[in-house]
């Protein structure tokens, strides 16, 4: 019996039995078939007898697409379409489809990245032209939509099975691609230090921040003095802050992130600044300190974003243009 008929029979029987049937669902068979087709060599169609020219065929070919040029491709596409159909029925049975517009809008995004055309060549055993690729990705996108609904609804049995099919076609670079353009999260090292880089104009500051070690609280001895207030020390290029930045404005710019967070005295800062001048270096240091604070206290990220402290100041020196004395300054206008 053909595989398709087998699958259809199973689909009917499972539908009759109900959603709680304890047998392998059609989606499982789809998955195994897809894997088998992928691994099977595109040769040796079964059922042909060798040597007998005129004798009738003994066994029918394994799949209906045997006589097509691209058997594996059409098989895989058929399996995907079957998977979509099964998933659709399953979701309808679970009363998740048809989904009203407001619910569909509120679904969380589960963006996926499909394999490239070259990678899919191996899966489909044919050269993937753009039109074939688009056909496949259209089917996969529809399947992904069903996965999205199932995952959000929490029907684990359906969503897991759909995912097992969808994951076959997901690119290995999916995480890297989805994380592109986003800031790399800062990790604290073994000693609890954060390492961040801040930039302003042409200056850069490499900033290490470590929490100030609180001294052990004194025992109930009345003779012991009260513990001193923990204080932040900022060293820039191994020089204390007040010696490296003599201007009060530069100093205030540097301590502003700590003031906004209310964390003066909590962290010690060591920084290496390079490039630019005093204002650029102080701005770069402030930027680095802001990023360091966010690394230590992730809850403050939204606050710092609102205060524009984690924003890299994009202002740079404007270039000189021809016909102008400087970037904007025009030459003296002469009447005659």
């Amino acid at each position, binding site marked *: 019996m053909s595989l398709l008929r087998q699958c259809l029979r199973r689909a009917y029987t499972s539908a009759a039995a109900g959603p709680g049937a304890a047998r392998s669902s059609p989606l499982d068979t789809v998955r195994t078939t897809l894997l088998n087709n992928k691994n099977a060599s595109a040769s040796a169609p079964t059922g042909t007898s060798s040597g007998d020219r005129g004798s009738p065929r003994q066994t029918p070919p394994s799949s209906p697409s045997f006589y097509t040029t691209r058997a594996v491709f059409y098989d895989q596409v058929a399996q995907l379409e079957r998977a979509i159909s099964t998933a659709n029925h399953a979701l309808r049975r679970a009363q998740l489809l048809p989904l009203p517009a407001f619910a569909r809008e509120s679904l969380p995004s589960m963006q996926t990245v499909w394999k490239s055309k070259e990678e899919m060549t191996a899966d489909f055993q044919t050269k993937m032209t753009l039109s074939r690729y688009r056909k496949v990705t259209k089917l996969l996108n529809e399947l992904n939509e069903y996965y999205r609904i199932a995952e959000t609804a929490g029907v684990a049995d359906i969503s897991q099975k759909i995912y097992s099919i969808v994951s076959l076609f997901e690119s290995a670079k999916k995480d890297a691609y989805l994380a592109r353009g986003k800031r790399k999260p800062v990790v604290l090292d073994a000693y609890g230090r954060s390492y961040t880089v801040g930039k302003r104009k042409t200056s850069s500051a490499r900033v290490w921040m470590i929490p100030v070690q609180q001294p052990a609280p004194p025992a109930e001895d009345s003779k012991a003095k009260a513990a*001193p207030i923990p*204080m932040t020390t900022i060293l820039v290029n191994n020089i204390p802050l*007040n*010696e490296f930045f003599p201007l*009060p404005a530069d100093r205030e710019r540097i301590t502003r992130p700590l003031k906004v967070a209310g964390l003066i005295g909590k962290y010690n800062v060591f920084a290496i600044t390079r490039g630019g001048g005093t204002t650029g270096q102080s701005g770069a240091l402030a930027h680095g300190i802001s990023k360091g604070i966010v690394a230590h206290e992730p809850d403050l990220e939204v606050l710092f974003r609102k205060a524009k402290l984690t924003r890299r100041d994009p202002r740079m020196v404007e270039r000189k243009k021809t016909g102008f004395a400087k970037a904007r300054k025009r030459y003296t206008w002469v*009447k005659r």
Partner: protein
Amino acid sequence: MSLLSSQHRHVALALAEAGSVLRAGQYRTAVTRAAPAQKQSQSIGGVKRGRKEKWEKKMNQERAQRNRDIPKFTRYPESKLQIPKTKERPAILPEVFQPGSGHSLDLPLFGPSTLTAKSVGQATSFDTTQTNAAKVFGLPNKMHFEYRILSTPCSVIRDVTLKAIHTLDKAKGSSSKDHRIVLHGRAGSGKSFLLHQVVQYAQTQGWVVLYIPRAVTLVNSTNSYTYDIRTQTYLQPRASYLTLDKLYKANSALLSQLTLSRELVTEKLNIPAGTTLAEVAQAGIKDKSFTSGPVVLETVLKELETQTKFPVLVAVDDFQALFHNSAYKDPFFQAIRPHHLSLPRTFLEFASGQRTLANGVFIGALTESDTAYAVPLELKDALNLESRHPVSPYDKRDQVKLGYTEGLKGLKVPERMSTNEMAGLFSVWKDDMALTTDKYDELFMSKYVESDGNPRDFVWKGLLSTLSP
């Protein structure tokens, strides 16, 4: 053709005609109207295309700029200019800021009762009698400015204050050869303030005090100088006269109890042995020509060296300036060495132990902020001071000056004031209403961090330089 009905077409045509008539009418009236307010430039002889517009634009820009320079408020009515009044902040100055309000800080007096371990971090004020060393001898420049803006001269008791005073107490009764101390530390860490506190303490304890707040004035050629064949040094008559005068004013009570052991005979003076040092000093001061100044000062100092009745404190601020070649020039236009000038030589000899006080202490304080008279290599070697740049053994060191650094002991003023002490300093300025904000703890913490615990930076570049609300 038009999709309008015949009736609408008629109306449209009529309107079009009316419009053209109207436009024609406007044109006619424009010519007869008066000239517009904006002056139009005229071109004579032809101007390049576009120049006329550029010129007009430029003229308009200049007119706008000229008007912008005049402040807007000159055009406001007076009612708009009144400061808004609120209940919390009335538009009048508080009484305390009015002149003659007599506001002053209410602080305990500096003395043995306030120099205890418990009072570390407590600000104390100094007495304002006429014989106070600060009033008589004066103060270093930066301290003078600070006391000018503070309502009461005061300073904070620190750990290092107690340490210095303890050293002074231990040295009482012994020779100054064993107690020659130099205060050193980072710029702005409080060396001059500490020296001033020591001087004030010595005065309260009945010491004879000779305090030189600005030793740089002895070497920067601001005082007259004259060569003396007898001593083979350059005398500084005016400086000696003033020093003698101040020494007398600050210690007249104690000096009147000491007597001259040998008679003093000069061209102008003939003072027998047994006269009180106060009278000797007065005799020197009476001669307004300054000529007796150096001789009398030398006599008085010699007498103070030998006596043991009262301990003597010789305190010199800007001590490192005495190790620099002076700004004076000899007849060959060479810079005069400091040990060839009378007053600097005196202090160098006290510092090096070549002259000793039988009962007394010599304390000097360095000034790191003066770039013209920086701390020399010889002093850095003697006191083992830290250097920002590596010091080479091949750098030349003056052997004579090295000789004058022999036996000097350094007392390091800590780089950072502790948070306790800084809190005391903060409360001084807070109570004197110098702060722009009422968020005291945030201001204190942020300014402490910004100044890295340096007291001068904390006050001058921190509290007094900020406009934070």
